């Protein structure tokens, strides 16, 4: 099946600065894909190249098999982008903004779909309000509506929940999840890693313009498999046989990284043998944030 997005050796240079240094990746149709990376990693540049807002210095990118430069009309018709910045046109009402955006994509008589979008985004009672009168959250919803107004099979959300309150964030994710279940391919960039972990089936991580990880979310979490154990000990200090497991701390507060839960028993036995009492114990698994930090610091 044609990938929803295919990026092949994309390079973007601004003078001496290399924003993207040969990025290649694919997103399959129907995936919920996360694109993560610290600020300045090149996420927005990559999205801009896919959306035609920027031209690559080298390499190629395609949306549903349509090259974003040579076959830009089809590529853009297949793509809906929710931009990171909260932008709006102050001359128009919500309905006008959606109708105009629909027209840009060559769609006539799109009123039924626009009404449905307004309803889904809880904007029906604001349909005739000027964009200037809306709160930040409502403007964000209109941006999502504008990205969906031509029913694109591939949707890119560039940090859509930045500065959005918890309630709206949850309702937005509910909406986006349903779009994904209906077959839309979703590409998400976010700095909220717990969101990415909960939503994305696959994640790529960008660092200094290069892909440093690209795998399913579960495989990424498993890459740092095992468990984390935090122990408060009395007297302080690990027995000599356990020091190789120490990942953080020392003395009376130690964090150990174990291969699995079954290793816990042998750790406890070693502590008992050494006459060290366990005052407190916390056991946990690494989350995406920890995986992200480790990959970025690697």
């Amino acid at each position, binding site marked *: 099946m044609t990938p929803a997005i295919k990026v092949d050796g994309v390079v973007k240079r601004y003078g001496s600065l290399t924003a993207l240094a040969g990025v290649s990746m694919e997103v399959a149709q129907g995936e919920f894909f996360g694109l993560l990376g610290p600020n300045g990693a090149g996420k927005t540049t990559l999205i801009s190249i896919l959306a035609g807002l920027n031209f690559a210095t080298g390499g190629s990118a395609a949306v549903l098999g349509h090259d974003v430069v040579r076959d830009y009309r089809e590529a853009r018709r297949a793509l809906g982008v929710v931009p990171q910045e909260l932008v709006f046109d102050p001359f128009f009402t919500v309905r006008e903004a959606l109708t105009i955006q629909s027209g840009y994509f060559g769609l006539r008589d799109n009123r039924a779909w626009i009404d449905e979008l307004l309803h889904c985004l809880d904007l029906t009672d604001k349909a005739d309000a000027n964009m200037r009168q809306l709160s930040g959250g409502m403007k964000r919803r209109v941006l999502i509506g504008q990205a969906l107004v031509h*029913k694109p099979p591939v949707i890119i959300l560039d940090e859509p929940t930045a500065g959005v309150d918890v309630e709206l964030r949850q309702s937005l994710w509910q909406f986006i999840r349903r779009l994904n279940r209906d077959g839309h391919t979703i590409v998400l960039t976010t700095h909220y890693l717990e969101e990415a972990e909960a939503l994305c089936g696959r994640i790529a991580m960008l660092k200094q313009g290069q892909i440093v990880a690209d795998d399913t979310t579960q495989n990424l979490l498993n890459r740092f498999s095992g468990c984390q154990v935090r122990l408060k000990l009395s007297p302080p200090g690990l027995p000599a046989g356990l020091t190789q497991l120490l990942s953080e701390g020392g003395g009376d507060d130690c964090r150990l990284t174990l291969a699995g839960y079954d290793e816990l028993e042998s750790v406890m036995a070693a502590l008992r043998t050494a006459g060290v009492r366990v005052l407190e114990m916390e056991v946990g698994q690494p989350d995406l944030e920890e995986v992200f930090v480790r990959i970025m610091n690697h």
Partner: protein
Amino acid sequence: MSLPTDHSPPGPRFSALTGFSTLFYKEWLRFWKVNIQTVLAPVLSALLFLLVFGHTLRNSGEPYPGVGYTAFLTPGLAMMTVLQNAFANSSSSLMQSKMTGNIVFVLLPPLSHREFFFAYLLAAVARGLVCGAGVLLCTVWFVDLRCAHPLWVAVFALLGSAVMGVLGIIAGLQSNKVDELAAFQNFIILPLTFLSGVFYSIYSLPQFWQKLSHLNPFFYIVDGFRYGFFGAGDVSPWLSAAVVAACLAALSLLTLWLIKTGYKMRH
């Protein structure tokens, strides 16, 4: 929020020309929604010019035989209004969209560089003509204005507004800030407009300035437009039309190339 039920492809409602016509419509709405500022104010300014200059210079002689100064001035002011407003429409719309970031709404859809160009151009022409018509409609009641060659009037109104619409697109693309656009307007457009013979016949100027005026393309626009009213001008309307059309073609080609390469937009 509830689930939208229909995610089927757009299908038969798609129309190739809709993108272009929507962008034109949006640009039209953009100026029409604030018509006090974009139409009435320039018409009023032109009328004030006419009142002040027409009154103070009414005894300065006849620029053309049988044509009083106020009548001579009126087409010039109408054309000046056309030129300035056509320029203002495309330039301010583009610059503001770039400055506020909402240009992405036009850049993300599958609009070609030609659709982009002609939509902005047509809207600029429309505003220029609406404002120019406003000036003529207001003056027709108290100025003895005839229209010897209506076709030339229409030709130069269209050519003039189109040239300025294209220049406005270039200025809008070039400018990222209000002061950059103001510099373009104040140091290029305004001097060329005022020195184009709006207020005088160039034959009233010294030889050197007459020759210099022939290098100003705006002079041909104003002179050709005036010829349409009085059947008399400083140069042949055919020469004026040729010069203006050549300028329009050259500027259009340059602008199409700038838009196609995403100059100061897709970066």
